[in-house]
C-alpha cells in the first residue's frame, strides 16, 4: 500500500477498536483491553512504517525539499462560489493563484483530507507509541475497575481523535478533532465521575478549554476571510485552476503569500489563544493541575505526552503564518517563557506527586512555546524535538507516579511515603531516569532538546555571536530555486510592506517587542526555569524514593512492586528517555527530517536556518543550573521526612503565595466566576419575575373563562337535557327565521 493509504489506517484502527469496545465491552469483561491494545499496536506499527517511508523520501538531497502526500477521502461539504476575492485581497495576491483568473469566485469545500509529512509522521509515531505503552500499562493499573471497558474505549477513541488532529489537512477538520480530543480528555478526567472532585475537574478542564476553542473558531473564520480556503494543501479545481491552500506548496513558495499586519497578527494571536487553552499556558493553565483527578495512565497519555502538545503542533504547523507577524511570534515566546517560569515556581512547593508532574508539564510546554516563538528553523525543530523527548520522559514519570500510587493504595501525597526504592526498585530506577531526562542532565534525552531550545533563544538574544559561528559547519541552506534571491530583499515582513493592501497595517504594537533585550530576558528566564525544573524533580525523587521506608496504612497488601504488565512499559519508556536525545541530536536526524515539512520550507523559515552547532557554553550553563537545582534539592530533602523547615527558610513569605498556586484560581473566581454568577442570578430573577409572570398571566385567562363556564357543569342530567332542548329550539327558531 502507498504511504497515503497507510496513513488512513493509523486513525482507523483505533476507531474500530473503540467502537468494538463500546459494543462488546461488557461481554469481554476482563479482556476488554484486547481491542484497544491490538488496534493501537497495529496503528503504532503503521505509524513507524510511515516515519520510515517519509524519511526515505526526504533524504537524498543536501537541501530539504518539501514532502507531503495528501489523501482526500471524501468531500464533506461543498458550496460553490462561496468566496469572491476582493481586488486587493491577500487571497488574490499575484502569484498565489495559478490559472485562469485570480479573482474568480472560489468554492468552499471541506474535504476530509489527510496529509502525510514529516511533522505528521513524527506526531503519529509519538501518539501511537506512547498510546500503546499506556494502554498496556493500564491493563495492570485499571484492573478490577468497574469502568474497565469504558476506559479502553476512551483511550482508543482518544488515539483516533489525536491522530486525525495531526493528520487533518483542513482547518475545519483540525477544529473538529481539536474538540474531539477535548471531549476525550473531559471524559477521562471525569472517569471516576462519582467522585465530586473528578467531576468538577472535568468540568473545569472543559470550560477553560472553551476559551481557547473560541480563539480557534474565530481564527479559522479569519483565515477563511483572508485566504479564501481552509485547506492546507493546494487543490485543483475542475477548470484547471490551482487554488492555493493556506499551507500548500504554491503559497509557501511565494514570499508575499502570507498576510502580516493587523489581520495576520490577529489570526496568529487567536491561534495562540487556542494553543494556550489546549496546551495549558498562562493564563489558561488552571485546568491541567486539576486534571490529575483522572486515572494516571490517562494523565500520562493525554495530559503529559500527547493532547497538551496539540497547541505546539498547531503553531508549528502554522509557522509560515507566524513568520509574517514578528509581534505574534515574540508573544508566543513571552507567553511560553513566563508560563515555564511560573509553573516551575509553583511546582517547587507542591506536595502531591502528580501535581508536581502536572506543573512540570505546563512548564515544559512553556519551553516549547518559547522555542517556537523564536521563529527560526532551529526553534521550530527544537520545539518538536523537545515535544518528542518530553513525551517519552514525562509519560515515563507519570506512569512511575501511577505505579507508586497503585502500590500506596491511592495515596499520592509525597509527605506520607518515603524510601520506596527498596520496595519498588524498578519503578525507582526508571523514575530516576525520567527525572534525569527532565532535569536536563547529559546524556539523557531532555538535556539535548533543552539545550537546543536555549540555543534558539540565545541566538535571538545575541544574534551576532551566532552569525559569527556560521561557516565552519555545513548546514541546511535555503533551498535554491524555491524562492530565489528575493527572500532577503522582502524578508518575512513581505506582505506588511505590500503597501496597496488596506489591511496590512504596518504598526502593530507587538512588533516593537521583538528586541534583543527582550530575548535576552527570556533566555535568562528559561535558564532559571531549567534550574527550578531540576530542583522540583529531584525534590520529588528524594521525597519519594530515599530515606527510611515509610508506607501509608492505605497501602495494605498492595505495598510491593507493580506487576510486570506495569513495569514493562516503564522499562521500555526508559530506553527512549535515555537515548532519543543523544541519537537524534548527534545524527541531526530529526532536524533534517522535520525540515522537509512543508510549513518549514517557507522561504521566511528557511532563511533563518543556522548550522546545528553544539554550544558548549550553553550546555555548561544549562547543566550548571540543573546541577544547582539538584544540589539544593539534596540539601533540602535527601533523606528528610518533611520539607517544611528548609523550604520555609528559603522561600520565606513566598511559600504561601506559591502553595496557593499564586492565587490564580482565586483571581478567576473573584473576577470571572463571581461576576458571571451575579449576572446569572440577575437573569434568573428577570426570568422568574418577568418572563414567567407573562406566561402565568396568559395561563390565567382560560382559568378565568373556565370559572364562569364550569357553573353549567352541575352534575344534574336533567339540566343537560334541558340545554339540549333549548339548543334544538334555538336551531328551529333560527331555521324558521331564515326561511
Amino acid at each position, binding site marked *: 500500500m502507498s504511504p497515503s493509504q497507510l496513513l488512513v489506517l493509523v486513525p482507523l484502527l483505533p476507531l474500530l477498536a473503540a467502537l468494538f469496545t463500546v459494543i462488546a465491552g461488557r461481554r469481554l469483561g476482563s479482556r476488554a483491553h484486547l481491542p484497544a491494545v491490538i488496534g493501537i499496536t497495529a496503528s503504532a506499527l503503521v505509524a513507524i512504517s510511515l516515519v520510515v517511508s517519509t524519511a526515505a523520501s526526504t533524504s537524498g538531497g543536501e537541501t530539504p525539499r518539501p514532502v507531503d502526500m495528501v489523501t482526500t477521502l471524501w468531500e464533506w461539504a461543498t458550496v460553490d462560489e462561496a468566496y469572491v476575492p476582493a481586488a486587493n485581497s491577500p487571497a488574490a495576491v499575484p502569484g498565489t493563484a495559478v490559472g485562469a483568473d485570480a479573482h474568480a469566485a472560489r468554492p468552499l469545500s471541506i474535504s476530509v483530507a489527510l496529509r502525510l509529512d514529516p511533522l505528521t509522521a513524527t506526531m503519529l509515531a509519538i501518539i501511537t507509541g506512547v498510546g500503546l505503552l499506556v494502554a498496556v500499562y493500564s491493563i495492570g493499573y485499571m484492573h478490577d475497575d468497574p469502568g474497565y471497558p469504558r476506559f479502553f474505549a476512551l483511550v482508543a477513541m482518544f488515539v483516533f481523535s489525536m491522530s486525525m488532529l495531526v493528520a487533518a489537512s483542513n482547518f475545519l477538520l483540525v477544529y473538529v478533532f481539536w474538540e474531539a480530543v477535548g471531549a476525550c480528555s473531559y471524559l477521562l478526567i471525569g472517569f471516576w465521575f462519582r467522585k465530586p472532585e473528578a467531576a468538577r475537574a472535568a468540568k473545569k478542564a472543559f470550560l477553560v478549554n472553551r476559551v481557547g476553542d473560541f480563539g480557534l473558531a474565530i481564527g479559522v473564520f479569519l483565515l477563511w476571510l483572508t485566504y479564501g480556503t481552509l485547506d492546507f494543501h493546494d487543490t485543483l479545481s475542475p477548470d484547471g485552476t490551482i487554488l492555493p491552500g493556506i499551507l500548500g506548496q504554491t503559497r509557501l513558495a511565494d514570499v508575499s503569500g502570507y498576510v502580516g499586519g493587523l489581520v495576520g497578527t490577529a489570526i496568529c494571536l487567536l491561534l495562540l489563544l487556542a494553543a494556550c487553552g489546549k496546551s495549558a499556558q498562562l493564563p489558561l493553565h488552571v485546568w491541567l493541575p486539576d486534571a490529575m483527578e483522572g486515572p494516571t495512565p490517562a494523565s500520562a497519555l493525554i495530559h503529559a505526552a500527547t493532547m497538551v502538545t496539540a497547541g505546539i503542533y498547531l503553531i508549528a504547523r502554522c509557522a509560515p503564518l507566524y513568520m509574517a507577524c514578528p509581534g505574534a511570534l515574540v508573544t508566543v515566546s513571552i507567553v511560553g517563557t513566563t508560563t515555564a517560569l511560573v509553573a516551575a515556581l509553583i511546582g517547587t512547593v507542591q506536595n502531591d506527586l502528580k501535581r508536581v508532574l502536572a506543573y512540570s508539564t505546563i512548564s515544559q510546554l512553556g519551553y516549547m512555546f518559547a522555542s517556537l516563538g523564536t521563529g527560526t528553523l532551529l526553534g521550530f525543530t527544537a520545539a518538536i524535538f523537545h515535544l518528542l523527548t518530553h513525551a517519552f520522559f514525562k509519560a515515563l514519570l507519570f506512569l512511575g507516579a501511577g505505579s507508586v500510587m497503585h502500590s500506596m493504595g491511592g495515596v499520592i501525597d509525597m509527605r506520607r511515603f518515603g524510601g520506596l526504592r527498596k520496595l519498588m526498585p524498578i519503578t525507582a530506577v526508571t523514575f530516576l531516569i525520567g527525572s534525569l531526562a527532565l532535569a536536563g542532565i547529559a546524556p539523557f534525552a531532555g538535556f539535548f532538546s533543552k539545550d537546543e531550545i536555549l540555543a534558539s533563544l540565545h541566538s535571538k538574544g545575541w544574534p551576532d555571536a551566532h552569525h559569527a559561528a556560521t561557516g565552519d559547519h555545513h548546514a541546511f541552506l535555503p533551498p535554491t530555486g524555491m524562492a530565489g534571491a528575493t527572500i532577503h530583499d522582502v524578508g518575512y515582513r513581505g506582505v506588511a510592506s505590500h503597501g496597496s493592501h488596506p489591511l496590512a497595517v504596518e504598526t502593530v504594537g507587538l512588533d516593537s517587542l521583538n528586541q534583543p533585550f527582550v530575548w535576552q530576558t527570556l533566555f535568562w528566564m528559561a535558564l532559571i526555569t531549567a534550574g527550578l525544573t531540576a530542583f522540583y524533580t529531584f525534590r520529588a525523587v528524594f521525597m519519594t524514593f530515599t530515606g527510611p521506608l515509610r508506607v501509608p496504612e492505605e497501602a495494605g497488601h498492595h505495598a510491593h512492586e507493580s506487576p510486570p504488565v506495569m513495569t514493562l512499559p516503564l522499562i521500555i519508556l526508559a530506553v527512549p528517555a535515555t537515548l532519543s536525545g543523544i541519537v537524534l541530536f548527534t545524527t541531526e536526524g530529526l532536524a533534517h527530517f522535520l525540515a522537509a515539512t512543508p510549513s518549514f520550507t517557507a522561504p521566511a523559515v528557511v532563511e533563518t536556518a543556522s548550522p546545528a552547532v553544539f554550544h558548549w557554553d550553553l550546555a555548561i550553563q544549562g547543566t550548571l543550573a540543573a546541577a544547582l537545582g539538584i544540589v539544593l534539592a539534596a540539601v533540602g530533602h535527601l533523606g528528610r521526612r518533611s520539607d517544611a523547615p528548609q523550604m520555609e527558610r528559603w522561600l520565606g513569605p513566598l511559600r504561601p503565595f506559591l502553595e496557593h498556586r499564586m492565587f490564580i484560581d482565586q483571581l478567576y473566581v473573584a473576577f470571572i466566576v463571581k461576576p458571571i454568577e451575579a449576572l446569572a442570578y440577575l437573569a434568573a430573577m428577570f426570568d422568574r419575575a418577568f418572563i414567567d409572570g407573562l406566561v402565568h398571566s396568559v395561563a390565567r385567562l382560560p382559568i378565568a373563562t373556565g370559572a364562569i363556564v*364550569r*357553573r353549567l*357543569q*352541575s*352534575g*344534574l*342530567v*336533567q339540566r343537560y*337535557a*334541558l340545554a339540549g*332542548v333549548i339548543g334544538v329550539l334555538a336551531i328551529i327558531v333560527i331555521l324558521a327565521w331564515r326561511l
Partner: protein
Amino acid sequence: MMTPALIAAAALPLLQNGLVVGAILFSLGLVGILTRRNLIVMFLSAELMLQGISVSLVAWSRYHGDFGGQVLVIFVLSVAACEAAVALVFVLQAFTRTGRLDAAAWQSLREDNLDRTVDREIPALDASSPTFPRLTQAGNLPETDEQAALQRDHV
C-alpha cells in the same frame, strides 16, 4: 269512485290527528325526561318521545301514500329495542352502584366547588331491610343458595 282530490281532502284530518297525537306523546316524554328523577321513568319518557316521532312519521307516510316513512318506523322500533337493552343495563349498573334509581344521586359528577342542587332530598337508604323490586311469579321458584342470598347487601 274517490278522486285524488277527495282522497286528499279525507287524508288531511287524518294527518292532523296523527300529528297531534305524535306531538302530545313527544311533549309528554319531553316533560317527563326534564322533570322526573327516576332513571327508569326517564328512560320510559325518552321512549315516549321516540314513539311520538314515530306516530308523526306514520301519519306523514300515509298522507303522502309513501311507505318510506313506515319502513323507517320499523327500523326505529328495532333500533329502540336494542337501545332499550343497553340503556337498561346502564340503569341496572347505576342502581347497583348507588342502591338508588334516583338520577340526583349522580350529582357528585358536577364540577368541584359547586353547590349541590337540592329540590327534594334523596331519602336515606335503609340498609337493614333493602326492598327489592318484585316481579310476578312465573313458573316454579328456582333453587336458591339461601346463605349467599343472605350475605348480599343488594342486587
